[in-house]
């Protein structure tokens, strides 16, 4: 079983964006949220100080001075502005980011998540994740529901060093949309072709299922 593909996971998150939001997209699947056609008018913020970037630049039209936080060459919207790094993180720390969408290795039912250090590593890659996680109004996480060996990534408590405590509001996996609810996860929407039994077997914490369960339109 697989459920949603990477773009569909990003779509499930992007459909929750509201008009006027300032959104920061992390490296990897989260950047795919900007491909989702949505009616909400979004301002995308990037850690390197680019505010109001648009779609990826077409091949041959890249600006060598202009990248997003993932190093991808992007375009600018008419309302775009550029600030330096300290001002970019002033925007983050002062709570002006409506949602940050990030990848993670693990996310816990208590709202903790881990995405900067893998087991056994001496070094880590924090980037802007800790600033964003601590300060954005909302933290949404996108990750594969299980590791390659089938072990769950949605857990009662994180085993890896955490990025921030108790901040995750919404989680999209290939199996569905979830909400950390303290002792377990609330299943909000389920991926087509996936069963509740499959989700429960692949999740390291209790999964609460509503009486009427909506299926994600993929």
């Amino acid at each position, binding site marked *: 079983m697989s459920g949603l593909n990477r773009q569909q996971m990003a779509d499930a998150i992007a459909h929750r964006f509201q008009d006027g939001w300032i959104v920061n997209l992390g*490296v*990897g699947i989260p*950047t*795919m949220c900007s491909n989702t056609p949505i009616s909400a008018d979004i301002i995308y913020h*990037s*850690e*390197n*100080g*680019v505010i109001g970037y648009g779609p990826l630049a077409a091949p041959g039209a*890249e*600006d*060598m*001075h*202009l*990248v997003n936080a*993932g*190093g*991808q*060459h992007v375009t*600018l919207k008419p309302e775009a502005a*550029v*600030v*330096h*790094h*300290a001002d*970019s*993180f002033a925007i*983050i*720390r002062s709570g002006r980011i409506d949602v940050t969408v990030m990848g993670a*290795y693990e996310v816990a039912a208590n709202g903790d998540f881990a995405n900067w*250090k*893998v087991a056994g*590593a*001496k*070094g*880590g*890659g*924090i*980037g*802007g*994740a*800790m*600033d964003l996680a*601590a*300060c954005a109004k909302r933290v949404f996480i996108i990750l594969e529901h299980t590791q390659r060996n089938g072990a769950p990534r949605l857990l009662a408590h994180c085993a890896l*060093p*955490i*990025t*921030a*405590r108790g901040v995750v509001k919404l989680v999209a996996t290939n199996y569905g949309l979830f909400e950390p609810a303290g002792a377990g996860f609330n299943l909000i929407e389920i991926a087509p072709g996936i069963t509740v039994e499959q989700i429960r077997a692949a999740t390291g914490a209790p999964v609460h299922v509503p009486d009427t369960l909506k299926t994600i339109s993929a």
Partner: protein
Amino acid sequence: MTRGSKEVASFAEAVAGIEDGATIGFGGFAMPGVPFNLMQALQHTGAKHLTCVANTTGGAAQPRMPDIGHLVERGMVRKVICAFTAATRASDELPFTKYYEAGEVEAELVPQGTLAERLRAAGAGIPAFYTPTAVGTELAEGRETRVFAGREYLLEAALPLDYAFIRAHRADAAGNLRFRRSQRNFNPVMAMAARVAIVEVENAIEPTGSFDPDDIHLAGIFVHRLVVIPPAPDGIWPQLREPKR
């Protein structure tokens, strides 16, 4: 009265006199704004026991560009202070990593916004500040925190630099700088945090007074040496690459 131009003739001259044990900050984020030419010139100096401050020790992408990893490989570095001491993707390996794992270089891992603000504070005469970033994580263990209005914050110290190596799009002879697009990133705060800021510039140095004072991104009082980047292959310019998705 006209003050002399801050322009020097070569990258070697621009990086001359770096003392052993110096702390050097390098601007740049991904490719834009990285002082590749100054970093390459630094490799050919005898400077040792350096502390290197930057967003990352270097990218995992090929072709490899001049980065802190090269300085580490040459045994020039005692310590790095970065937001990445491992690659963004755990499956990528940075050249720096094996030296770090072997204990041949120290590292201080700092959240990116905290790194930027520690530099900004150093440049602004602020010795330390409180931030909510990293509270409750491994990075905060054993460190001073304080509660303001019911929320816990972590004390962070300013990060002063001896030297900043940065890259700008345009400069006048007085050192007033303009950056282009996301090239700006860490460069202004690196320069302001430093005792000596050294700038590689993408265009010929313009006469003092060429810019409208309202259109200057970094005032020349923060800038000490300017050097013009020649066209490739003599100068090093950002390369187009297809980033991994």
